[in-house]
């Protein structure tokens, strides 16, 4: 992975730029100490690191605006950051950039149950949005596994999803409005407490734009009444093909579970070794969760189990209590961490049409064997969003590059079968160079023209999303 050369003219102006930022912000909001900057040198894709020129932690929309005004005048790249959990390097700085962290913007501005929305500052963590309303029986639906740490700002930038998005949709389906600071410091309000756009759907464009169109400082989010209850069933199979078929049959039967999660043998074993969740040792397992009252749950699980039984499962375990539900979910929720116990890993995020699941799983196995690397699969099966985990050894020279090459092959495979490079983690720097596998020259050009409209100087997170060569003219 390459990053552009830092611009010498910016590096030489560092002292002046830091001074200007200090003058515009309260004490303590500008960080330029090399040791303190280490915190910001990478995000969740920790294989790539680079400290920024300095970091700023504004405490209000007005302060964000002041920062953008200065950076725009100086032509300095700005890398917005929420909590830094991105898995695609979206928040990775360059040496000539100002890292703009919104973590201090974490307040709740308005809660409105009659109209079912909450307005928060964008640095607030995902889980604490639900935390602000759950005592009154409401929740915020998108639930990325990183929800304890990740910020709404990052969720909006990456259009994040979660285990329950099969029923509730991803961030873009639950976002009503934003306050955003433009590249030149102007503050814009898009959307609000109403449900649809009055003109062009700018909100739909901003969501998923990876910090390249503006800095989001506030968000209006839809909240929903919590269901009366939820309960999973775990089903084990001795072939992933059959597990995939079972997923298809459930969906075709018109049942809408809130989640259908898939784990393969490698991740099942890793999870067992890590948390002893009591999973069967089999080729593939599904965790299927439904919601409703006790009677509604029984009804739906009954139908799902009947479908599963027709596929000759090696085990069916229906949860009968909160403790059992927790145990069923435990292995899934800690699967990434469990894989991390075995070795370093790279987490991919391609989406495929669910009908292609068996073929793609087989091909991933074959590709892994060709490269001599193990690949585990744990993912959201209901919507085809795969998370192949490539195990490699960061200390072994050449292993990272090998894993990168295998990853690119797997993502190309996803595109070939009709899917896409990334379902929820974003392009960032990780998938930037293979965007051409999915999009032609005009498809990329028109997206870059959108950025031209929002950020004519290309100072917002410029080295992301688009292949470096393709965006070179605009970044210089």
């Amino acid at each position, binding site marked *: 992975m390459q990053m552009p050369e830092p611009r010498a003219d910016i590096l030489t102006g560092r002292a002046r730029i830091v001074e200007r930022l200090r003058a515009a912000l309260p004490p303590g909001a500008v960080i330029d100490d090399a040791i303190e900057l280490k915190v910001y040198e990478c995000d969740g894709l920790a294989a790539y690191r680079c400290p920024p020129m300095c970091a700023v932690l504004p405490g209000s929309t007005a302060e964000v605006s002041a920062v953008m005004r200065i950076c725009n005048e100086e032509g300095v790249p700005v890398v917005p950051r929420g909590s830094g959990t991105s898995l695609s390097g979206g928040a990775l700085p360059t040496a000539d950039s100002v890292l703009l962290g919104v973590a201090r913007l974490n307040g709740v501005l308005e809660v*409105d149950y*009659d*109209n*079912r929305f909450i307005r928060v500052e964008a640095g607030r963590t995902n889980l604490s949005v639900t935390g602000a309303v759950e005592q009154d*029986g409401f929740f915020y639906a998108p639930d990325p596994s990183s929800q304890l740490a990740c910020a709404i700002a990052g969720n909006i930038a*990456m*259009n994040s999803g979660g285990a329950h*998005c099969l029923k509730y*949709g*991803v961030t873009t*389906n639950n976002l009503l409005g934003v306050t955003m600071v433009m590249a030149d410091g*102007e*503050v*814009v309000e898009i959307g609000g*407490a*109403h*449900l*649809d*756009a*009055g*003109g*062009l*759907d*700018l909100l*739909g*464009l901003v969501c998923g734009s990876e910090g390249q169109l503006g800095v989001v400082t506030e968000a209006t989010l839809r909240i929903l*009444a919590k269901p009366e209850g939820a309960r999973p069933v775990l089903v084990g199979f001795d072939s992933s093909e059959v597990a995939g078929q079972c997923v*298809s*049959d459930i*969906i075709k*039967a*018109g049942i809408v579970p809130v989640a259908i999660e898939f784990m393969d043998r490698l991740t099942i074993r890793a999870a067992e070794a890590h948390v002893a969740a009591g999973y069967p040792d089999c080729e593939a397992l599904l965790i299927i969760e439904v919601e409703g*009252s006790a*009677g*509604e749950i029984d*009804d*739906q699980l009954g139908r799902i189990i009947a479908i599963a039984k027709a596929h000759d499962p090696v085990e069916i375990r229906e949860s009968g209590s909160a403790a059992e539900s927790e145990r069923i979910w435990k292995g899934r929720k800690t699967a990434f961490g469990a894989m991390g116990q075995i070795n370093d890993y790279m987490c991919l995020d391609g*989406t495929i*049409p*669910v*009908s292609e699941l068996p073929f793609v799983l087989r091909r991933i196995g074959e590709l892994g064997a060709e490269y001599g690397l193990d690949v585990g699969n744990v993912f*959201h099966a209901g919507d085809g*969003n795969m998370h192949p985990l490539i195990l490699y050894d960061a200390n072994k020279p050449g292993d990272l590059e090998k894993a990168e090459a295998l990853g690119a092959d797997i993502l190309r495979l996803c595109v070939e079968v009709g*899917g*896409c490079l990334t379902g*929820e*983690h*974003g*392009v960032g720097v990780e998938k930037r160079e293979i*965007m051409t596998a999915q999009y*032609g020259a*005009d*498809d990329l050009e*028109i*997206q870059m*023209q*959108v*950025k*031209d409209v*929002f950020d004519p100087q290309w100072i917002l997170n410029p080295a992301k999303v688009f292949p470096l060569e393709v965006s070179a003219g605009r970044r210089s």
Partner: protein
Amino acid sequence: MKITSEQELAEAIRGANGPFRVRGGGTRDIGKPVVGEALELGMSGIELYEPAALTLVVRAGTPLAEIEAVLAGEGQRLAFEPMDHRVMLGTKGEPTIGGVVAANVSGPRRIQAGAARDFAIGARFVDGSGRIIKNGGRVMKNVTGYDLVKLMAGSWGTLGVLTEVSLKVLAMPETEATLVARGKDARHGIAALAAALGSPWDITGAAHLDPGVAGPESETRVRIEGLAASVDYRIGALQREICAGWEVLRGDESAALWRQVRDVAPFADAPVVWRLSVKPSATPAISQALGQAGLGHAALYDWGGGLMWIAPDPEHDDGGAEAIRAQIAAHGGHATLVKAPADLRARIDVFQPQTGAVAALSRGLKQKFDPRGILNPGLMG
């Protein structure tokens, strides 16, 4: 000009200076009247339908009726419940899927399932320079690059001409039922809808109709869909907690009530109809203020109040624009003049006028997608 392929469309746009009026089925003649040659989209047909993957890929000119029939064959549907504008506008023709997406047309289920834009997962289109563009795909989760599909949804053919769309579809429920209360004023009706929508019982329709709209008395309606036992359970729960004494209508009777709301059928004879998208709890106050400002009107509230259809008394010179837009200024949201004689639509802003940075961004996008300004020029203002 009748267009039968994407390539032909690209060449037509590249080779001409327009202006063009982009037409699907011609059933949604909304917006400022556009002067220009009609581009009639003849590309029709389903390219891919995978019921088990809940996905459908279809050419933009495909009649909606054809799609709905094919989906019904597999027990599925377009869950965003697109309105049939012919009923209210009195237009003729066959609605196409391209028109549905381009106008982001959603019905009562929007509050629970989402809008057309939420179900649009991929698109191909030809922009104003004649470039053939694809964005998104045919999978439900996709953050690969910017989401131009959302931008195209609701752009009314002003940024590009859709040639193909990919949609997420959902299963039809086993059954549906509606709880109905009569005689509530708008404030109490909307408050009851808010209580129902704030309950865990998964409401898929929440509407209030002023007296005189669907009958002499007002009606407040709440819809539930799903497995039969679950629908029964939730009716019981709602009657116990929120909807004590409400009448229950089931099956076809329930469906007819929502077709009426979806198509705003009660305003079929009204010469002027506005569509307001606002914060739900603000709507009773808006209606009251309009009355006080001398704008006699009837109102139909969908989306728990968040979508307000207003038919003003016809004598107002501006169709009520000044009074209505003053309310938007006070409460937020936006108002669109969906139905009016062409001369009125030519005189006033049909879409909510935009200001400041939002207006500049919208202009900037139009300039990039259609630099010559030849696609539906002026339609959105």
